[in-house]
Structure formats: C-alpha cells, structure tokens
C-alpha cells in the first residue's frame, strides 16, 4: 500500500455550546491512498456529510466547532489553516461534488464561467486559456456538443449533465482527493450508472483518491475499495468492501445488509431498521446502536467502546462482533453478486 494522501484522526464536529452542544461527528479516523475509493456509508443524520464538509472547513463557522488530532493532506497538516490558505487547497488539492447538481450550480452564471473560474482561481490563467481548459474538461466528462454548453446556464442542462459539469468543475485542477457527497442520489438509475462509471474512469486517469459518501449499498458494492460504516456520528466498522459485505462485524452493518436483502426480495416495500437515529447530545457511554440492535445485550448500553481489529484492515466497535459474524447473512452475497 502507498503512503496515504489524506489522513484523518479523531475528527470531531459539534454544533452549539456546551452543555447543549450537539456532537454530530465523533472520533472519526480514516486514511485514503492515491487511487483508492473509500465509501462512507450510513443513514441520513449519521454525520457523513458533516464529516465531508469538515475536511474542507465548509461548515457554518459560527455554529460548528471542528476538532481533530490530525488532519493531513500528503503529510501536510490542514489544521489551523486560515481561510486564505484553505482556499488554495479547496478545489485544487481537494475537490467536492454535492448531492443535488441543480442547486449546487449557480443558476445565474454560465457553465463556462463556473468551469473557467475553477481553473482561474488556482493559477494565473488567461480568460481564453481557461475557456479552452473548460472545454477540454467538458469533453473529458463526455458532454456532447461541449462548445455550445459553455455558454448555457445550468437550467438548460439535464440532471445528469449538471452532475457531469459539477464533476468537470471538481476535476478541473486535477485534485489529489475528490470528495463526492451522495453525487448520484438525486439522479435516476440509468444516469446514476453513467456517473459512477465516469467517476471510476476519471479516478483511474488522474490517480485521484475518492471519498464517496452514500447511503446506497448497491452503489458501494459497485465502486468501493474500502467501506466505513457510520452510525450516530461514529465510524462503527471499517474494512475492505468484501470484508464488510461478506463478513459484517457490527450489529448495525448486519442490519443494513439485511434490509438490503429484504429489499431485493420484496422490492415494493422500503426496507428499514426499526427505530430511528438517535440525537447525539453530550458524551455518552456504550453503543449508540444498542437500542435498535438485534444482537444487543444490556452491557452494550453501558460499556465503553473501542475500535478492535478482527482481521487485517477490518475494524469494528461492536462488542458482539463474534456473534454478529456467526449470524448467517445472505445479504452480502446478494449485493455483491
């Protein structure tokens, strides 16, 4: 394995003031190597998007507090960087694409302007050169008739096209890391597949590391090298994609995969784990998932949690990992196969 491009240790994000502060992200650690795709999976409210936004400090500055023991890009710490220094990282070394390509593109500016801006923000490039670059990237993301698109506005493009433009914008400066925050959720299924393929191809071309955030296990199965499962602000299990799907070692992961199996069998009914995501106020002991967990015993709610390695590269916070792994899960095979 190569040296990690992005290293995150003990990332925490809280909103508001103690004692009422809301801890949206806690003790999140992961690292990302060049050319690797890490999927961050979880229900809405689990802290996936907040984690992504925290990496580039894009959270509302006056309400969000970000802490970490280490946050480094290619060995260089991003902690404590000012707005100006961070702006050189944003869009150049680390880019982001967002969930809804309609609302994420500026409706009042042309596609060409927004693309050229991404180029010109990070280097002394003439307007004409930036426009040529913009055109080249549009071709790269396979937008037909790219020259005409440059002078169009986002509302004149289809949803899939808009997401292609977002991707083009994010890749304009050949970033080391691409953070994709549910980039296919708002698109329909056929377009979704094309966009996933595009991200995969571009990753191969540029050697970009991808942090892919999604709640869709089908997408995970398709693109992930490794998977980190988030629940209530924490990463509860992390491992190779095959480890997670074939050998889940956390009650929550197991539950997620079972719902997928159910969904595959009875496509009409939306699958869900009974109960809802807890609100995370203050420090708590024990496993946040315990109240909803099929494997939980009383101690799960009170005993302190640690990340434990159960196989090379496969870690879990679950006390009952052995029992969970013992339970037969057909879901992994279904999703993977």
């Amino acid at each position, binding site marked *: 394995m190569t040296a990690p491009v992005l290293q995150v240790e003990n990332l925490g994000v809280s909103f508001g003031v103690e004692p009422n502060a809301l801890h949206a992200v806690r003790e999140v650690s992961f690292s990302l190597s060049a050319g690797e795709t890490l999927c961050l999976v979880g229900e809405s409210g689990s802290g996936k998007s907040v984690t992504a*936004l925290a990496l*580039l400090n*894009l959270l509302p500055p006056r309400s969000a507090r970000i802490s970490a023991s280490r946050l480094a890009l290619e060995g260089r710490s991003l902690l404590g960087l000012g*707005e*100006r220094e961070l*702006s*050189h*990282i*944003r*869009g*150049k070394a680390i*880019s*982001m694409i*967002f969930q*809804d390509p309609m*609302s*994420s*593109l*500026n*409706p*009042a*500016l*042309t596609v060409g302007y927004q693309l050229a*801006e*991404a180029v010109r*923000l*990070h280097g002394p490039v003439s307007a004409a050169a930036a426009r040529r670059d913009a055109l080249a990237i549009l071709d790269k993301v396979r937008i037909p008739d790219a020259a005409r698109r440059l002078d169009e*506005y986002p*509302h004149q493009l289809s949803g899939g096209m808009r997401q292609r433009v*977002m991707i083009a*914008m994010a890749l304009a400066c050949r970033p080391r890391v691409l953070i994709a925050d549910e980039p296919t959720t708002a698109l329909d299924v056929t377009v979704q597949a094309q966009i996933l393929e595009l991200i995969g191809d571009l990753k191969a071309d540029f050697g970009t590391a991808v942090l892919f955030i999604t709640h869709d296990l089908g997408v995970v199965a398709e693109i992930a090298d490794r998977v980190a499962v988030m629940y209530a602000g924490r990463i509860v299990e992390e491992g190779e994609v095959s480890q997670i799907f074939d050998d889940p070692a956390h009650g929550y992961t197991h539950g997620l995969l079972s719902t997928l199996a159910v969904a595959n069998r009875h496509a009409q009914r939306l699958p869900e784990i009974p109960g809802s995501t807890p609100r995370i106020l203050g420090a708590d002991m024990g496993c946040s998932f315990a109240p909803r967990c099929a494997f939980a015993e009383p101690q799960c709610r009170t005993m302190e949690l640690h990340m434990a390695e159960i196989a090379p590269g496969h870690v879990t916070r679950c006390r009952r990992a052995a029992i969970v792994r013992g339970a037969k899960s057909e879901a992994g095979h279904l999703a993977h196969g």
Partner: protein
Amino acid sequence: MLRYVGLRLLSTIPVLAFVLLLAFFLLHLAPGDPAALIAGDSATPAQVEAIRAQLHLNEPLSTQLWIWLIDLAHFDLGRSVFSNLPVTQLIAQRFEPTLMLAISTTILAVLLAVPLGVIAAYRARTGIDRGVIVLAVAGYSVPVFVIGYCLIFVFAVQLHWLPVQGYKPLAEGLGGTLRSLVLPTVALALLYVGLIARVTRATMLEVLDEDYIRTARAKGALTLRVLCIHALKNAGPPIVTVIGIGFASLIGGVVVTETVFNIPGLGRLTAEAVLRRDYPLVQGMLLTFAVMLVAINLVVDLTYPLFDPRIRY
C-alpha cells in the same frame, strides 16, 4: 422580448386609465362648487365665472371628460389657473432639477445600501448586522425634512461647506449642480437606503444559504468573490424590485426635499400647485408622476433576465 414589452405595456393601460379618471374626478370629489374652490375665498364672481369657463365646468361631466381626454391626446394638459402658462411648459421647465435629484439619490442610495445589506447578511446576528438594521429603520423613520434641516444646519450654516439652499442648473456647470445637490441627495437617500439595505440583507440571507454558495467556497473562492459574484447576482431581482417600489416614496420625498432646499423642481411645483389650488397643474403633476412610476417599474421588470437567465421574455 418585444412581445413581452408589448404585453407589459398593455397591462399598464388599466392602471393609467384609473389614474386618468382619478385625476379628472379629483376636483369633483370635493364638496361644493369646484370653480369657487379653485378661485379661493377672496375671488370675485367674475373670476369664478372665468375659471368655470376655462375648465369647461358648465358642460356636462361626460363632455368635460371628453374634452380633457382629447386635449391630453395632443399633450395638452391645460393651462395653470395661477400663471396661465401651459401646464406642459411648466412641467418641462421644472424637470431638470428633479431628474438630477432623483438620479443622484438613486445612485447614492444603491451604492450605500447594497454593500450595507451584504455586510449585514454576511455578519448576520452580530453587532454589525444589528447596526445596519437600526440604521435602515432609522433611515425610513426620520422624516426627510428633519434630516434635511439637520444637514443644512451642520454643513451649510455652521461649517459653510455647501450652499444652504437652491439649485444651480446644469447649463451653469456640472460642479455647481453637484454642489447644490449634495445635501438634498443625502437627505433624500437615507429613506431609500433603509428600504434597499433591508431587502438586500433579507435576500442575501436566503441566497447565502444556497448550495451553490457552498460549491463556490469548495472551489476555493474567497469571501469577497463569493459575496459579490456568486451571491449578489442571484439577489438581484428583489433588490431592483425594491428600487422600483421605493421610487414612489422617492417622489413623495422629492416634494418635501425640494421645499426644504428651495429647489425649483417638480416637487416644489406640486406643493405650490396644491397650496394655490391650481387644479389643472395638480392634475398634470399626478399624471406625470404616475407615468414616471409606471415607467420605472417597467424598466425594473425588464432587468430581471440580466440577473436570472431562467426568466425569459
């Protein structure tokens, strides 16, 4: 585009028709004999009769309206009862100072209000924000003549920096005109600043919450660029709308400002006409201002596509 302008012009017809009728019937709303009302208490019966003849008040109402409309179609608004000059000529003579005052006030107000509103939204819920809000409310709460006299007292009477009152026409040089416009412009602009800054702030608050603002920051754009290019352009339509709406208050303010600063413009002319019960002139002023207001709001409508390409005509 042309089609839209055409339709939009058509839609002003009911409005203008109503204003025409209002202007025409205004005199007849008043209790008593209109001719006597115009002539005043000290008029002789002969004078009253002369006015009655001049305004065709002996004719049936429908005939009066017809004559008035026919004249209007020939750009004839009648003659002033007081000076016996054509109303159109009086209005033309007094147009320049008011136009200059309106232009300078709008420019100053926009230049002050938009940055204030943007800063307030960017620093929402801080002291800066609250300061801007208070300033905005104060702007349209303090009557223009109170501000006007305070300005005159400080900058003209005490410091002698600027002329106390009056207006220097453009023909005598731009410098003099601008000097004579400084104080009235500031007095009149504060009202406008309040309105525009408030709307700018509210709109920017909404725009800054949008996803594309986050995208711009994620691309590496710095605050100033995000605010001025990505946010402000999207906040355009409500801001120009309030500039159009505020123009009505501006006209009301002009009447007072020109009186305070002794500027011989349309506002003064209106105040004089009303005080002298110079009815044809009052009619003419009502029509002139209403047409100006309708025209401004038409122009405002036509600027929307500049800010939002989704709007097409």
